[in-house]
């Protein structure tokens, strides 16, 4: 990562936004490629030298979700979805299809850069652990440590008392570190189904889990809330 430039592909049909993203990313020292529709975007991605993909959901030729499914069939690169506020359900569909993160228009350049850095950390973590966190017996993130073998969680070396569901939640988020997981995705994995009442339970479990692992719940370090969308474990 450190010895070569990080290549970012911007798939966006609006020329102004495309230019804005390209300019600001270049200014930050990233390598930038652009594509103005899904077909061109997929072609560029197939070449395999793209590290991160920024994908606009409202493309003229293809549906965003189908692009993501296609990309996921051959690559695991971070995909950040860009969408307008009114397309909330599309956003959730895109995340469920395998996108990592999302940005809502209008977004600020700082926000865009922050998201890119999160994606970069995810790539770095993957390379470190040799392809995904799944194989590791111990998970480290800042002061937080999960020992999958003994099923214990430590914060700054102190063991935390978690209920079984809180532990499952934490593990799920840790295994998908850096990815935004939708409510449906989480309830599907924890309870095996997704009823409305489970989403309410999820909120409560998440709030109590947070109280245990976050010092300041208003400014969470580890678990980010994406209101109306889901949750994400942040890499420290």
């Amino acid at each position, binding site marked *: 990562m450190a010895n070569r430039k990080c290549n970012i592909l911007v798939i966006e049909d609006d020329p102004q936004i495309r230019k804005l993203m390209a300019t600001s990313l270049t200014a930050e020292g990233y390598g930038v490629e652009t594509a103005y529709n899904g077909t061109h975007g997929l072609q560029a991605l197939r070449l395999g030298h793209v590290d991160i993909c920024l994908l606009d959901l409202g493309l003229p030729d293809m549906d965003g979700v189908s692009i993501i499914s296609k990309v996921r069939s051959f690559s695991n690169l971070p995909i950040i979805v860009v969408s307008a*506020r*009114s397309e*909330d359900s599309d956003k959730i569909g895109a995340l469920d299809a395998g996108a990592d993160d999302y940005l809502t228009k*209008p977004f600020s350049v700082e926000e865009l850069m922050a998201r890119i850095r999160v994606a970069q950390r995810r790539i770095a973590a993957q390379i470190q652990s040799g392809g995904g966190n799944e194989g590791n017996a111990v998970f480290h993130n800042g002061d937080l440590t999960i020992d999958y073998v003994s099923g214990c969680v430590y914060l700054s070396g102190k063991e935390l008392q978690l*209920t*079984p*569901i*809180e532990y499952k939640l934490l593990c799920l988020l840790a295994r998908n570190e850096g990815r935004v997981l939708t*409510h449906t995705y989480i309830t599907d994995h924890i309870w095996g189904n997704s009823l*409305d*009442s489970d*989403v*309410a*339970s999820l*909120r*409560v*479990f*998440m*709030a*109590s889990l947070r109280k245990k692992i976050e010092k300041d*719940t*208003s400014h969470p370090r580890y678990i980010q*809330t994406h*209101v*109306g969308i889901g949750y994400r474990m942040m890499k420290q």
Partner: protein
Amino acid sequence: MFSRLTTWLLGNTLCRENAPVKAHVRYKDVFSIAGIIGMVTLLGLLIHYLGFSDVSVITLYILAVQIIAVRVSGRISNAVVSLLCVAIYNFFFTDPKYTLLAYDPDYPMTFVIMFIVSFLAGSLADRLKRMAGQSERNRYRTQILYDTSQLLNKALVSQEAAEVLGVQLHKLLDRDTVVACIDEEGKIACRYYPDTCRSTFEGQADQDALVWSVRSRAKSGAGTSVYPGARCSYAPLYQGSHTYGAVGVLPGDAGLDEFSESIMSAIISQCELAMENIRSVKDKEEAAMKAQNEKLRADLLRSISHDLRTPLTSISGNASMLMNSEQTFDEATRRQLYTDIYDDSIWLVNLVENLLAISRVQNGTMQLRTTTEVLDDVIDEALRHIDRHVQEHTLTVRKSPDIILAKMDVHLIVQVIINIVNNAVKYTPAGSEIIVSTSQKQNMAYITIQDNGGGIPEEERPHLFEMFYNGSKEVADARKSMGLGLALCKSIVEAHGGSIFEKNVVPHGAAFVFTLPTEELPDGEQKV
């Protein structure tokens, strides 16, 4: 004379038989006949033993026949019981006793008279009973008609009227009934009464007949010349130029009697009128709503086009200055121009967010996409999107120690919090304190946004939540607001079943409070 009377009685009995009488003998009836005759015979033996005249015994038997006729209907059973009584009387009370012989030459005549009298008495009792039953049925039908009109009056949409029609027809006729309604897209939607009788109407001929009745507004199906092969009869529901659907009834083997048919058509026309009324009321309401929406839209457009100009002029002006003569400005001036462009565009972003929320206020009812959310998360989310100028103020969040869950359309509630906090930022001098706090009281969540600014002038308070009211106060940056924010907040909060109000704070400042109904915490591990 007797024979005429008998024919009259029998004839009437036949006419009254609507439904085929089940011919088989019921054991319950046999037992009650045996019981009554047995009791009468015991009583007769007692009278006979005490030495009273046999005439009273005969009268007792006639009474027995009458009582039996009330309990067990039917001409044949009446005749059989009368004969049985004569035979038993002969057996127990005439010499020689305990035989079916009679020595006295008067007896045959006595037997014949006794048979005829008991048979007629029985027939009369039977007829009275039937008439009582008939008037009970009439009362029941009148009741149904009355109930129907009451229920139809209460129906607010034509589906409700159709439901009433189906339920009442089924109650009245006790036959399988279908009510087909034409929905807004012109499709025919059927409801069945009882729910399980769907198969009755599923034959091809029946479905064709139903559709034909709806399309041609005429009767069809069994008993008519159109689709006579169908199992059921269908009648259209229409009034004036508008067709509402059709009704189908399974006539059964015996068909429907005239009385039922007339009541049925009365109910159907009641229903047609009710549907017509509902439709015209709806049309009027829609027209009124449309006019109101038009007015709102016109106001909105006027207001927007006027208010958009200011920030757009500023953005384009500043940008063009920078493009043309960037070098001539010093660093501080340039910085100021960039800041102005940024501030104005953020102002436009907020405006667009509010307009998006307003566009969802349709037909007076909001289309809420609700999910259950933790209040603290929603407040954190909202505070991430507030005005940049908040840095000049002290913003404190005081969260309730408990987790508060509420069902809400999260984007709209976030918008409410943003609007109120931005107002606080805008209308208080720099350095003021803004406190956002949450609490829960009796199934209601309270979100309070309080500042220690100048408070709200008394004369403005009644108008705060009115649309396009923007007060008289000079704002720090001299830009007037559109007067949409609080009006929008009010309609959003009210659509969620909460309320919004403001109060002045002692010694100075304003507080805006809104409430939301809370959700029960789901049972779970967190209590362990």
